[in-house]
């Protein structure tokens, strides 16, 4: 579990220090303050500079161009405009960024342009990680400074950037039905199925079973059987946002012992289910040893976390709220016991002072 984080020269951050991290970390801030970039920095740091982690954010942001050498028919790879990872959106010989964290031991990834001025080799990126089997790797760049990348199968529509390294990323678009069915297929009849059900019962204690029944119809893809009932209920009929909560439950379970990054955690959720959502996230993260990094713009989302603290003060050490401000070199940190005060006093913690 990361205890602190330092970002230097990555995307719009000249320097950002997050001095403390908890099990569940919620980041707020104005538009373009860098909340999503912060999640991407964690992703690259945990990916030890692996190319899939390096370009995952660029793919999500569509800072890419599909390449079809054979007219429009044959898709071969993406050209990733890697310059956007660096401050100023430019690749110059001095361009580099550094991500550092502490999970008991120092963890560091540094990415820069190689070779430097005057060296004869073709331009490329060097990626240095103190946790990788290969501490220093080089990636060739095209003449226009793009990185050729062949997406892994599934990665274009998967909610996850990369699963094998112990971290998962849920985007603002959430998880579509197709990827959700595939995720469910991965957990069904495994020990994880019971964990997903346990997590979902935090929201609806009467859930007995879940099944994917019709893979062609998006609204009816999942059915629930409630305890004491003889007929099955479509997941979609359970109310707004239940699919998002189902996806959260699966992703939390799939992140056991690792990290879950969630951009705009409140997307698609009515304020009435926010407290249950936080209960699901915090309790499951505690139980399955998951560290959560989430962002939000929503005041309802903050109020719900405050409400959860008031009913469960034991989450005090598990939750931190961070405000990210453009141009400020560290996050402002609020502890869980301050959340009810913030909600009651209508303090605007999300924006600039």
């Amino acid at each position, binding site marked *: 579990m990361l205890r602190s984080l330092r970002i230097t020269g990555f995307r719009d951050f000249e320097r950002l220090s997050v001095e403390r991290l908890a099990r569940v970390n919620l980041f707020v801030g104005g538009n373009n303050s860098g909340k999503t970039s912060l999640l991407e920095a964690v992703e690259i740091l945990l990916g030890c500079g692996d190319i899939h982690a390096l370009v995952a954010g660029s793919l999500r942001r569509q800072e890419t161009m599909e390449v079809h050498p054979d007219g429009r028919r044959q898709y071969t790879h993406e050209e990733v405009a890697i310059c956007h990872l660096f401050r100023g959106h430019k690749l110059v010989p001095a361009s580099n960024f550094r991500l550092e964290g502490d999970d008991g031991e120092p963890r560091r990834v540094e990415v820069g342009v190689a070779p430097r001025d005057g060296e004869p080799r073709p331009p490329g990126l060097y990626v240095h990680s103190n946790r990788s089997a290969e501490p220093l790797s080089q990636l060739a760049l095209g003449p226009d400074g793009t990185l050729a990348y062949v997406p892994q199968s599934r990665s274009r529509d998967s909610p996850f950037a990369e699963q094998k390294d112990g971290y998962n990323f849920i985007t603002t678009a959430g998880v579509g039905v197709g990827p959700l069915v595939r995720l469910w297929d991965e957990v069904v009849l495994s020990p994880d199925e019971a964990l997903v059900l346990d997590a979902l019962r935090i929201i609806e204690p009467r859930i007995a079973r879940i099944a994917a029944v019709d893979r062609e119809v998006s609204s009816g893809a999942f059915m629930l059987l409630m305890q004491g009932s003889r007929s099955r209920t479509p997941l979609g009929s359970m109310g707004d946002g239940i699919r998002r909560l189902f996806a959260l439950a699966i992703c939390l379970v799939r992140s056991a012992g690792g990290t879950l990054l969630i951009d705009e955690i409140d997307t698609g959720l009515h304020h009435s289910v926010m407290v249950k959502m936080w209960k699901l996230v915090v309790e499951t993260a505690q139980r399955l040893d998951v560290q959560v990094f989430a962002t939000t713009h929503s005041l309802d989302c903050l109020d719900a976390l405050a409400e959860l603290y008031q009913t469960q003060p034991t989450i005090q050490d598990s939750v931190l709220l961070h405000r990210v401000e453009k141009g400020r070199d560290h996050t402002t940190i609020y502890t869980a016991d301050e959340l009810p005060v*913030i909600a009651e006093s209508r303090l605007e*913690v999300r924006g600039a002072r």
Partner: protein
Amino acid sequence: MSLNEKSPHRLLVEGRDDQWAIINLLARHGFDFGDEKTRRPAQERLPFVMDCKSVERLLANVGPSAKTCRRVGLILDADHPPYDRWAQIRGALDRIDVRSPERPEAGGTIASGCEDDWKIGICLPGEQA
């Protein structure tokens, strides 16, 4: 008259009496919360005078307000011995990593900490006691 809770400045007071005493005092000095003509140009400068409803809740508001607002002031009743009051204020500042001396300094105390640009001034009546 409406108080602007979105103001970047907050003045924390213990109760409703203090809230209105401050608002009327400010009005006598030209900061009239009820006068639209005065308010409009000065709105950004007028603090949200917040009735915290108790001294305990006022002290709980010190940390979150200091981390959020541009300027924060607090007004506490002088109904406790100065040293007890000082201990309460110290406790609230300590929770946001602001270190203050064990005893208030004669002529007022200035503390700093937590954020580089923070300065905290505290004036207690009879603080030399």
